[in-house]
């Protein structure tokens, strides 16, 4: 900037302009400079409560991560519209963990050390939870709430799980399967942690109800040639195929079972992660009669769930639906329970909130209310058994009251 330039500017800075700016400044100060300058967005007087959401918005698990983020935003907006918590607004800080555990640790670190969030929600797969939990809970000294149905055995302090456990998915479901299918079970499974642990539990429930496990087999997740297994299932007259293979392998298994005439011959297909979203994996006729057991189905048709569905569909359309298998219901439950706990604790600090969360309960939710079982960091909730009928679910049984999680078993 040369001398002429400066001169020009000084000249152009007229008395009128000075007066204008001075009056604007005075006005700003008079109206409460702090709020105007530091918080232009809203009229909140207090600092926001920071809620970290770390989920898989990209990568193979994004079908679950996107609804999770959507639900979180919906609930947080709702809480804010009703005045926030403790007179403070909630601020949602969303991070994409990209279905990549290595990357996720950094993202969660950002939430914990830079944003200094008051609580972290997220993770879909167990491997993701395992990768990030230490960074949040032990190294980060922050509360962590994990929303997905999983294999159980998570006993880390300050880590609360709000999705169904094996006990919740088996205790009412397997007796129903024995009654409505038969006593001979076959367990084709994907070879990773969840199926192994779930099967171990399912086996005890099957056997204690007088059933029998004819076979238990593990395949790589992308396995697509099941003829030997299907043959064994057909020749040994299995009544129930209790499946824990997952996409992409699961589509081939169901197709081959269908072609062998398993369901037509009276066999019962069962799969506990199958929600409305999963119905699209296979043609409807191949999974006719498939039974699933989850904490919520659209078909439950409860007024509160319907309201949530309507609200969700209005905001986000139907591409990434609000279902149980994607952990969206667990996310809803987690956020509401946490909000109740914060209100009770009158604080957002980890220890008092965890203490209040330990016995928090909500009266309404998708599929009904639920409550934390004190001392377990797991949730007691209603469970529903549904059967696929021409591409839609029909509820065939509802648990008698909330089912206990049976976790965490370690003291």
């Amino acid at each position: 900037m040369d001398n002429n330039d400066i001169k020009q500017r000084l000249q152009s800075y007229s008395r009128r302009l000075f007066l204008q700016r001075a009056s604007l400044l005075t006005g700003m100060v008079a109206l409460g400079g702090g709020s105007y300058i530091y918080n232009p967005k809203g009229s909140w007087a207090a600092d926001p409560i920071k809620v970290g959401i770390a989920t898989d918005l990209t990568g193979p698990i994004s079908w679950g991560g996107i609804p999770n983020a959507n639900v979180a935003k919906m609930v947080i907006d709702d809480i804010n519209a009703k005045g926030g918590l403790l007179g403070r607004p909630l601020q949602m800080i969303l991070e994409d963990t990209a279905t990549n555990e290595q990357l996720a640790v950094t993202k969660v670190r950002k939430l914990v050390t830079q944003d200094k969030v008051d609580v972290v929600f997220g993770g879909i797969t167990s491997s993701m939870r395992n990768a990030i939990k230490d960074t949040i809970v032990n190294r980060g000294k922050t509360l962590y709430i994990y929303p997905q149905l999983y294999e159980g055995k998570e006993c880390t302090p300050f880590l609360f799980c709000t999705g169904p456990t094996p006990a919740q998915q088996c205790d009412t479901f397997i007796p129903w399967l024995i009654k409505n299918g038969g006593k001979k079970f076959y367990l084709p499974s994907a070879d990773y942690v969840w199926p192994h642990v779930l099967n171990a539990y399912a086996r005890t429930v099957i056997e204690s109800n007088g059933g029998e496990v004819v076979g238990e087999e593990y395949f790589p997740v992308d396995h697509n040639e099941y003829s030997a297994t299907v043959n064994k299932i057909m020749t040994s007259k299995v009544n129930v195929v209790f499946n824990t293979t997952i996409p992409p392998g699961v589509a081939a298994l169901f197709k081959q079972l269908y072609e062998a005439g398993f369901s037509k011959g009276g066999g019962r297909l069962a799969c506990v992660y199958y929600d409305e979203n999963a119905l699209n994996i296979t043609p409807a006729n191949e999974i006719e009669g498939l039974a699933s057991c989850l904490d919520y189905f659209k078909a439950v048709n409860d007024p509160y769930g319907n309201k949530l569905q309507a609200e969700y569909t209005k905001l986000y359309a139907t591409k990434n639906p609000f279902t149980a298998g994607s952990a969206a219901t667990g996310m809803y439950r987690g956020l509401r329970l946490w909000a109740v706990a914060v209100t009770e604790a009158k604080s957002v600090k980890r220890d008092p909130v965890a203490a209040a969360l330990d016995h928090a309960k909500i009266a309404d939710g998708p599929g009904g209310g639920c409550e934390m079982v004190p001392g377990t960091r797991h949730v007691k909730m209603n469970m529903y058994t549904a059967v696929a009928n021409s591409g839609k679910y029909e509820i065939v049984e509802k648990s008698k009251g909330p089912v206990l999680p049976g976790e965490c078993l370690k003291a």
Partner: protein
Amino acid sequence: MHQAPPRREKRRIIPLIEVTLLAIALVLPILLDDFWVLFTTRVFILGMLALSFDLVWGYAGIMSFGQALFFGMAGYSAALLATKWDITSVFVLLPVAAIVGLVVAFVIAVIIILGKRPPNLVFVALGTLTSSYVVERLARGWSYVGGQNGIPSLPRLTAGSFELTEGPLFYYLALVLLALVYLGLRVLTRSQFGLVLAGIRQQEHRMAFFGYKIQNYKGFVFSLAGLVAGLSGGLYAFHEGYVGPGQLGPVLSTQVVLYALFGGAGTLVGPIVGTGLVDLFSYYLSQMWQTGWPIVLGLLLLIIVMFRPTGLIGFLVSDRERVGSFGRPSKVVPIRKASHEPA
């Protein structure tokens, strides 16, 4: 007229970059907040892994898509020692990690590189990629090492009764180790030995006709790179507090290749710069467009690798400097004595 100054004085840009980066790295923890210290520490650790790839590809022309294998195996070994035997001493775990990296790399080298017939580039690339893939699959299915879930909640490294918490302390540990490794590799690659490696990279057959045992050189360099990758794997596991099968697999292996190519292979400093920049880009892109950022990042990497094969460092450093000089500046010797004995 006075004698013209030697031209080499003019083209020393790499040392300048090195010194600048080191100076910045030394003061960084004072300037940055906690998160960025952790972020940079991770860049140093992954930068070390990228260095190991640069050693094999940038200097010896071995296309290794398996650096994550040595990284992950070392991480798993150290993690198992820490969780099953309660060994947390940094003086045990890091050497163990480095040795595991070395041994695994040596075993792979014996299978892939030191066979009866010299392998070609594609064979080595696919061989290392497959090994990395196979071991990842095995780790996913093996419950002793946690299967898919990996080994969570690792204890912190200790030095005596002192706990190495992540933050400035771990930062300087990683920086010192990275600097030492860097220095070692720099001396090695700029020595007469490095000249042989460069010869192998440029014209393998001619080097063979000179009488160099190319496969032995390659095997040695490959194992050494395994050692570096192992050390970085050990550090990584304890910095992140977790090991999982993703740390063994082709995804990380490929990521490292991209770090190196993006920054500029064959320069040592390039891959470290590449690691930092790729991670920074991916961080900021993921903040800007949360559901589509991997696409943008992928395109960016693709453009650089396609149109700037010498990487970002190629904008600053001439080809001549990239190739560099080897060993002591040679005295003027009669041409007849100029040829070297095989080292």
